[in-house]
């Protein structure tokens, strides 16, 4: 157990390991995305109320789910970075933040596009939309804080403190936004048939969620590799690896 953790902290080992992992994960991600997209967009039946416009769910829901999970990945990396001062955790945290921000933005934009035909408006101050918007601010805060520090190891610890404070806050934010919405809820808008989703629509959705998790992992790994390569651009092990393959 400890030897694995110890190894994970070594850049050369991680660089080689992640290289092998990406070689497998990248084709898998592309396959899952293709299959999920074809299944969801072409094969799954149209919704009897929303017609074909509901199909954006196959982008919207997976990006929202993974964006939320991404914050916890970042918080976990932050905790590891603060407690054990493992450099690789810093790199992970830094790699996750922009990916998470992008996924949150995708979820918000697809939600707006979906809202236009369904609710007749681009933007509604709905509880979930508002929470996602706040999540976007939380992500952007981490990215901006990282960029603002010149000393990158201090930047990583500052971001770790921020994400941990954010993690404590996220359940409170979600709950409070939920209450806020239920107090002010406009009667005309109601999200229907979300939990009672038909299996013929659910399976491609689950597949797409899996595909987005893989996409998240690949993007983060590639991000980490780019960061490591830049940090160790003069190291001999990196030169050997690049020239050797």
């Amino acid at each position, binding site marked *: 157990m400890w030897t694995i953790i110890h190894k994970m902290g070594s850049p050369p080992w991680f660089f080689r390991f992640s290289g092998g992992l990406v070689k497998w994960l990248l084709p898998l991600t592309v396959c899952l995305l293709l299959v999920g997209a074809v299944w969801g967009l072409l094969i799954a039946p149209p919704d009897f109320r929303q017609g074909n416009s509901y199909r954006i769910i196959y982008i919207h829901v997976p990006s929202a789910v993974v964006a939320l999970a991404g914050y916890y990945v970042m918080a976990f990396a932050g905790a590891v970075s603060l407690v054990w001062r493992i450099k690789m955790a810093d790199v992970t945290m830094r790699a996750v933040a922009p990916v998470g921000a992008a996924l949150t933005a995708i979820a918000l934009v697809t939600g707006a596009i979906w809202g236009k035909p369904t609710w007749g408006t681009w933007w509604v101050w709905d509880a979930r939309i508002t929470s996602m918007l706040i999540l976007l601010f939380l992500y952007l805060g981490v990215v901006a804080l990282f960029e603002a520090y*010149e000393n990158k190891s201090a930047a990583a610890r500052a971001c770790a403190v921020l994400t941990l404070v954010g993690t404590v806050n996220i359940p409170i934010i979600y709950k409070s936004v939920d209450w806020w919405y239920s107090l002010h809820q406009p009667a005309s808008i109601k999200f229907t048939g979300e939990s009672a989703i038909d299996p013929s629509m659910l399976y491609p959705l689950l597949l797409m969620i899996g595909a987005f998790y893989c996409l998240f992992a690949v993007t983060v790994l590639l991000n980490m590799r780019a960061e490591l390569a830049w940090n160790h651009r003069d190291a001999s092990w990196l030169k050997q690896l690049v020239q050797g393959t």
Partner: protein
Amino acid sequence: MPASESNLTLHGAFARQFSRHARAIIRSPAEVANPLLFFFMVITLFPLGLGPDPQRLAEMAPGILWVVALLSSLMVSGKLFASDYEDGSLEQLAIAPFPLAVLALGEVSAYWLATGFLLALASPIFALMLGLPATGIFTLMVSLLLGTTCLTLIGAVGSALTVSIRRGGMLLSLLIIPLNVPVLIFGTTAVSEAVMGGNATSWLALMGALALGSLAVMPVAIGAALRVSLDQ
């Protein structure tokens, strides 16, 4: 350091830190007056922007008062650790044989008394300017007392994280505003409920829980963040 001071207790260190900053604040009354003046001026902007209709202003008053309270705390917290960082006293605090979290809490408490506490005391005046019904005023004061505790502590974390960064003001708002959302929601809801004759107590209880929780957790984060800033 004289021998008599070498057996300083944790409480003593906290008290000394508190009184040092309280004195510094009293000696520059502008520090105390500025947030209140800011509050006063921004409140003036709302009738100018929304129109002077008393009915409408009264309806919006809980939200307006709370948003402006949040903004004024944002304005204050940027300066919280700045002078300590610049004159090097923060480094001395960091090597003191006491947890930095406790020492920082001393400073934050002094600031809260001069800003949040005073704001809560002065809030009935601003509430009357916006025509908030009298039934909401007591709840507004209590909610501001509890809420500014959270706002100040969260603001202190943001300030500790950005104190070493040049022009960190905009960054500070980006860091703090999302974390302040629950306080704003609970505060406005409590006041609105009180105005409508509903159950404001449960919302105030939630704010109290939030304030106590922040009081327990945030000083640790403030201490850690200050150490990061000193390493920079």
